[in-house]
């Protein structure tokens, strides 16, 4: 029973043999394959189904899911509840009518576990009942009735588990622990873990993919009290918490969640550790370290975990983070919370709210349990190629670099405005370019709305402006490639005057055909973004600044907050076929840069230079985030020197004003072996972007991209 570590080191053993076996079975697809067997409940025998309103259909589905989803109690599990319908793995509400899924699920949100733990789901019911009284007879009544229907369904599902547990021998402890929660407030650590898990499992069962948020902050006080009162030992607590992580592997089935080759570990169930609370006090506690122990021992990458760092972060925590990080698998990433809180303040949040930030189940920052979030990715390189350079038509010319650049920023602005107009068309009744933002009805999403503050109070769903904050964040992609393209044109055409813009565009139009010497010159003689070379880096900083200005200009003029962000996730792959040859020596169809990272192959100075390049931009203007991927070789972080280096790397990242960094310790050679012999590497996880994927479940194309990113 080996829990694979990409750095080749043996993982420590702290958990019981039974728990390790449970983890091993879960990671090796036992429960995922079982879940796939029952994809969904069928609504076909519903009378007059077609005449029902969307929300009536939804309520019917949730109620049926709660009544019919298989109940699964795993051998030896310490906490219970399981999301056992296979369509949920693929982001659908697992209910069909005439074999068609009726609704899609909701993701990119971290729900309000705080209220669940401290007040109980019963409290949420009370709020819904009150709100219904207030809104009786109004257009909000159907949503609030749906809230109560979904809560009824939740209770039905809860009762089914209780009666199952009551009847299986040896599960008395589970039964007792599930009796009160999640409907009443949790009274100890064990109940608290069960409460979060059961709520999470129900929301997932209904087809949604919520994040977990700040688990150490949520659970810390419960554990502290239990330890103090002698009700629990640390070892017992670790065992219980480990089951939370292991249960979270119940969807591992070896298949891509989206059917696009992007891997099977991508359900956005992200976790945050450490950082300060709303009063500025460090939340790090025993739970923080237990989570790190569990990740270290089991190597579970299904809960991508990010640690909030600041300049005062305790050496002990940083050391422990580094120890776990260097096993590889990209399981841990880091936020610089000082910069992020500053970014959220600039974006209009108050201080105590900003300090509560978690993420959306990926790495984009949001206030948990209060935020509707959507991001709109776009390829900045294609804007340069198609609009600014008119796909390299011969008629294009600019007198100097500034003329070219300002045209590009203008084209960027048009793109951002188009994003806003799309949203207006889809989400409002008022149409494009109007000052009034009147939400129009969207598909039902009551289950997540229960756990998003604002929805019940207003009587409005998650998709229709219910949450306290509503975010639509344009995400610029292809940043490094756009910057390097602009930089090359500036150097080659306007500074060195080696050829005219028209001549150069002709070379590009012909995909560098017959111009290998020129292409080599560009590749080898220019210092691109990511090499700590000011000329290219400051162009990146300038572009991000102009992008943030454009988004800020829209902020406040619509129903959304409109913060800027940077990402590609894996889209550099899907964009590749639509990209022409680029000025920075790239040919048509090449796979280019990820997130805020340099163009593959263009960085020659190592990780510190990449971080310095990235930090030259004012990242506090990009409130939803900007991710930097850093790949490290196992050998480079081995030994005490290596550990110190990893700690220093993170300290430097904070000091220089980074936002989010995902270091992965992996050797391209190992990945190639895994490609040839997947059977030996079933549990090898790699950081793809905001998530980890089991490498062997990625398609060949994705695998190659990950390998390429790891080669230097």
């Amino acid at each position, binding site marked *: 029973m080996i829990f694979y570590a990409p750095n080749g080191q043996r993982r420590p053993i702290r958990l019981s043999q039974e728990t390790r076996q449970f983890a091993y079975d879960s990671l090796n697809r036992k429960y995922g394959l079982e879940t796939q067997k029952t994809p969904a409940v069928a609504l076909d025998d519903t009378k007059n189904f077609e005449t029902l309103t969307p929300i009536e259909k939804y309520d019917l589905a949730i109620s049926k899911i709660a009544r019919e989803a298989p109940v699964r109690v795993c051998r030896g599990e310490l906490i219970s509840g399981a999301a056992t319908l296979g369509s949920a793995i693929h982001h659908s509400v697992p209910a069909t009518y005439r074999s068609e899924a009726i609704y899609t699920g909701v993701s990119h949100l971290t729900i309000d576990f705080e209220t669940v733990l401290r007040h109980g789901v019963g409290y949420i019911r009370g709020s819904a009942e009150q709100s219904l009284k207030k809104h009786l007879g109004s257009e909000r009544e159907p949503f609030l009735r749906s809230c109560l229907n979904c809560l009824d369904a939740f209770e039905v599902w809860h009762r089914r588990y209780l009666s199952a547990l009551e009847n299986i021998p040896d599960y008395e402890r589970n039964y007792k622990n599930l009796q009160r929660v999640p409907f009443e407030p949790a009274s100890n650590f064990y109940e608290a873990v069960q409460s979060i898990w059961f709520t999470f499992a129900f929301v997932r069962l209904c087809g949604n993919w919520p994040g977990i948020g700040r688990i150490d902050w949520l659970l810390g006080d419960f554990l502290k009290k239990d330890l103090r009162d002698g009700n629990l030992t640390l070892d017992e607590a670790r065992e219980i918490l480990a089951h939370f992580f292991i249960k979270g592997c119940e969807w591992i089935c070896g298949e891509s969640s989206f059917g696009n080759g992007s891997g099977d570990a991508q359900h956005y169930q992200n976790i945050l550790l450490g950082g300060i609370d709303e009063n500025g006090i460090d939340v790090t506690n025993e739970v923080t370290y237990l989570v790190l122990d569990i990740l270290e021992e089991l190597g579970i990458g299904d809960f991508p975990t990010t640690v909030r760092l600041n300049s005062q972060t305790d050496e002990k925590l940083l050391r422990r983070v580094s120890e776990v990080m260097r096993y590889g698998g990209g399981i841990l990433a880091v936020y610089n919370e000082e910069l992020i809180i500053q970014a959220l303040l600039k974006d209009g949040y108050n201080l105590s709210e900003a300090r509560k930030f978690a993420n959306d189940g990926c790495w984009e920052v949001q206030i948990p349990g209060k935020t509707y979030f959507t991001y709109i990715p776009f390829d900045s390189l294609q804007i340069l190629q198609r609009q600014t350079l008119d796909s390299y038509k011969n008629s294009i010319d600019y007198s100097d670099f500034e003329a070219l650049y300002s045209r590009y920023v203008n084209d960027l602005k048009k793109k951002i405005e188009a994003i806003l107009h799309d949203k207006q068309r889809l989400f409002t009744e008022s149409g494009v370019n109007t000052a009034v933002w009147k939400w129009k009805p969207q598909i039902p999403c009551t289950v997540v709305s229960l756990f998003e503050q604002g929805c019940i109070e207003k009587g409005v769903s998650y998709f229709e402006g219910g949450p306290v904050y509503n975010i639509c964040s344009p995400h610029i992609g292809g940043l490094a490639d756009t910057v390097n393209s602009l930089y090359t044109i500036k150097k080659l055409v306007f500074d060195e005057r080696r050829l005219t813009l028209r001549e150069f565009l002709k070379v590009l139009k012909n995909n560098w055909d017959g111009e290998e*010497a*020129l292409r080599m010159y560009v590749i080898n003689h220019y210092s691109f973004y990511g090499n700590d070379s000011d000329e290219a880096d400051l162009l990146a900083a300038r572009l991000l600044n102009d992008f943030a200005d454009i988004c800020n200009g829209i902020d406040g003029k619509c129903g959304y907050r409109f913060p800027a962000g940077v990402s590609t996730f894996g889209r550099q792959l899907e964009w590749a076929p639509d990209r022409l040859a680029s000025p920075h020596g790239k040919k048509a169809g090449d796979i280019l840069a990820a997130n805020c990272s340099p163009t593959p192959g263009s960085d020659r100075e*190592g990780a510190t230079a990449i971080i310095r390049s990235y930090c030259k931009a004012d990242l506090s203007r990009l409130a939803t985030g900007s991710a930097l991927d850093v790949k490290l070789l196992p050998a480079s972080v081995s030994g005490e*020197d290596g550990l110190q*280096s990893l700690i220093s790397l993170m*300290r430097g990242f904070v000091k220089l004003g980074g936002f989010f960094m995902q270091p992965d310790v992996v050797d391209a050679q190992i990945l190639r072996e895994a490609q040839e012999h997947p059977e030996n590497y079933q549990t090898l996880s790699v950081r793809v972007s905001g998530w980890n994927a089991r490498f062997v479940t990625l398609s060949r194309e994705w695998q190659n991209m990950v390998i390429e990113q790891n080669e230097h």
Partner: protein
Amino acid sequence: MNTKTDTQLTVTEIQRFCMHDGPGIRTTVFLKGCPLRCAWCHNPETQKRERELLFYSNKCIGCGQCVKICLNDAHSFNGNHTLDREKCTACGDCAKSCCSAALEICGKQYTIANLLYVLEKDRAFYGDTGGITLSGGEPFAQGCSAVTLLQACKETGLSTAIETSGYFDPSLLEAAVQYTDLFLWDIKDTDDSRHIRYTGVTNIKILNNLKLASDLGAKIRLRCILVNGVNTDREHYRNISDIANSLSKCEGVELLPYHAFGGTKAVFLGLADNGKKEWIPTEQQLGTAKNILHSYGIKVL
């Protein structure tokens, strides 16, 4: 006292984000020139003190620009690119014009001011543990200039380390110890006749310098290359232990198993590939070395 920041040094490479040239994250400056000629040399481009032209044949796309630009007719094409090193004066004109960076000048002149500019860049990452490392070659082959660089770094608050063969003018040591936080001191072989055979010089000077450095209060890590069949005997490990135990501030010993990458670098210089697979030590040999050092109370880093 202000250091002379216009002092010049000949540098083959400045490498940032080094994690194994001393503690923490470091920027390593490789200085050109070495009095030793180790048979297993990993950095043959740092042996000669003079500028040299490196040619990476794998990068050459055959554009022929170097032929046009060279005033000494050192480059020619007959099917393949050939470089006549007799004619080459390492002026560097061809390297500047080489689009694919297949030609590169090894050994650029830097003033200390220029070096400090580069060394400063990663200050945020050095933290309490990292800093700068002088390596080579033998850094002290550039004499007082190397010491001046160490001094200049200390004056700006950068932590310093030096990787040395130990074979240098002892009169440099007093100042060097003052400005160096850690010496990474090579012990290639404790058997002098083998030392002479495989490195071209005696180890007596090296061991005398080591003692002197220790007496002056230097903090030292010993670095011992292990070459299978050359110095993988127990006697050598015991001698290393004795030396380590005789030092006043010894952090421990690093064992560096021989690898064959130095060989390819020699090819870029127009030399024969000196890489020998049979020299790579076995895991067992490494284990034995570690055990013996441990049995003498030596920390193996």
